[in-house]
């Protein structure tokens, strides 16, 4: 699949944003005043910046509001509801924390639930697609949770939770890569099943239907850049999980230290998310004799 920068930005930034908002909403860290303002503000900034970036890849962004209509069937629509719902529900909680007041924990907890739903929906948008075997697996939503919560705990300054989540993230990410590498072949989609001509012999693409590019090829067939996958995987694990885990535990707890660890983590998250798209193969590539 084409690794569109807007989608990579959106999923990583808003993922981390909702991860942070989740941590703050559960009350796992007690922040007040200026610190509360900075952390809640960062959470809102990341979440909304990501959501804004996501509208850039729409063909008709001015109609984006229509995406709220099909929550009964569409994960994309559910994501819109959960994300907007979380941001609205948590506003009073954030204001209370900044102004030093307090709200009953039920407010924060419903907002926290909405954050989790937003993350789940983002993961399910990809995991539901049987056409992309690498994504069509429980590891996809699990990864979206793990990246978001690791980022959130790093920023919120929960060193041990963050280190633990980074370790879990690394294990899960490794497992997702390894099992994902085999899934396309294991599902048995081939040019033979795509054309139904397998019973006649070995099928090969002979004459493409068009000499130029088209939307399908630009969007679903991405062959450049997979060469560096092994290096990028190592980089993603080091920057995304290993180094930030060491940083949060080793550095004395302060907002600048958390932001530094988070910046390193985010670089790893970008690399992992780029691979998430670039390595995903869509079955339509079979028709073109390419994946």
């Amino acid at each position, binding site marked *: 699949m084409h690794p569109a920068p807007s989608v990579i930005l959106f999923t990583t930034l808003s993922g981390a944003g909702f991860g942070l908002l989740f941590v703050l909403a559960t009350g796992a860290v007690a922040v007040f005043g200026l610190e509360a303002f900075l952390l809640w503000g960062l959470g809102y900034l990341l979440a909304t910046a990501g959501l804004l970036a996501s509208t850039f890849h729409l*063909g008709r962004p001015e109609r984006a509001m229509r995406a709220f209509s099909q929550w009964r069937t569409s994960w994309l629509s559910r994501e819109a509801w959960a994300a907007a719902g979380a941001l609205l529900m948590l506003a009073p909680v954030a204001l209370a924390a900044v102004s030093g007041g307090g709200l009953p924990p039920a407010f924060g907890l419903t907002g926290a639930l909405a954050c989790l739903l937003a993350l789940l929906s983002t993961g399910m948008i990809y995991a539901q697609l049987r056409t992309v075997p690498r994504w069509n697996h429980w590891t996809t939503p699990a990864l979206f949770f793990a990246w978001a919560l690791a980022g959130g705990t790093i920023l919120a300054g929960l060193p041990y939770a963050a280190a633990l989540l980074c370790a879990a993230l690394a294990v899960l990410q490794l497992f997702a890569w390894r099992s994902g590498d085999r899934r396309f072949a294991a599902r048995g989609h081939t040019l033979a099943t795509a054309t139904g001509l397998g019973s006649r012999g070995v099928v090969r693409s002979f004459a493409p239907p068009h000499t130029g590019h088209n939307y*399908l090829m630009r969007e*679903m067939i991405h062959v450049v850049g997979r060469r560096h996958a092994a290096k990028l995987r190592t980089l993603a694990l080091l920057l995304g999980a290993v180094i930030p885990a060491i940083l949060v535990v080793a550095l004395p707890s302060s907002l600048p230290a958390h932001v530094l660890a988070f910046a390193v983590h985010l670089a790893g998250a970008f690399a992992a998310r780029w691979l998430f798209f670039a390595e995903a193969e869509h079955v339509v590539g079979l028709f073109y004799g390419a994946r």
Partner: protein
Amino acid sequence: MTALPPPPAKKLGLVIDLDTCVGCHACVTACKGWNDQGYGVPLSDQNAYGSEPSGTFLNRVHGYEVVSGGGPAEIVNFPRSCLHCDNAPCVTVCPTGASYKRAEDGIVLVNEDACIGCGLCAWACPYGARELDAQAGVMKKCTLCVDRIYNDTLPEEDRVPACVRTCPTGARHFGDLADPESAVSRLVAERDGYDLMPELGTAPVNKYLQPRPKGAAEARPLAPLLDVRATGLAGWLDRLLERL
């Protein structure tokens, strides 16, 4: 609503005969021609006369080579358009309700006025049947020529999809695949019509027909011509030159 309707009583669709398709792309052109001025926004082209032309099409024709054993390679021309799946994954993923499957005849359509161009439906389709129009920013797909097949202003013989009407070899057949007595259903029964990528559970309405088995290649019809023996003056010259 992007929920799928209950199984429709009528399932309009195409049966594509890979035995007779000659790969002329007439259906591609006819489809673009009709749908450029009918249902929804036109099918735009980008850089049409430049070095990297690109454009939106609702129907594409591939060419495949099939080799088995030591026999000669077989070329199969393979038209690919929306299969109007019963279990259409492209419909249920749509966040806006723009994608829908009609309850009355099973045709899968896009309401272009509601589409936000998110592209998720194209990701969900295994068959590459949906293309986002680069100019209009909305999703385009085969409409089964819904604006022809019910169009009373057209002469009777034209009330079939443009691709079916234009195909010079009659390789594309249109009809109701839910009616076991229809011509298309009988054709499917006779020729073992099959589904593309059945393992994905999309339950396509459109069916494909295998190329019929071909006999062994005939003795080369031009072979005797290669063994001409010259007679008369030419024969004498031939023998003379041979000896030199």
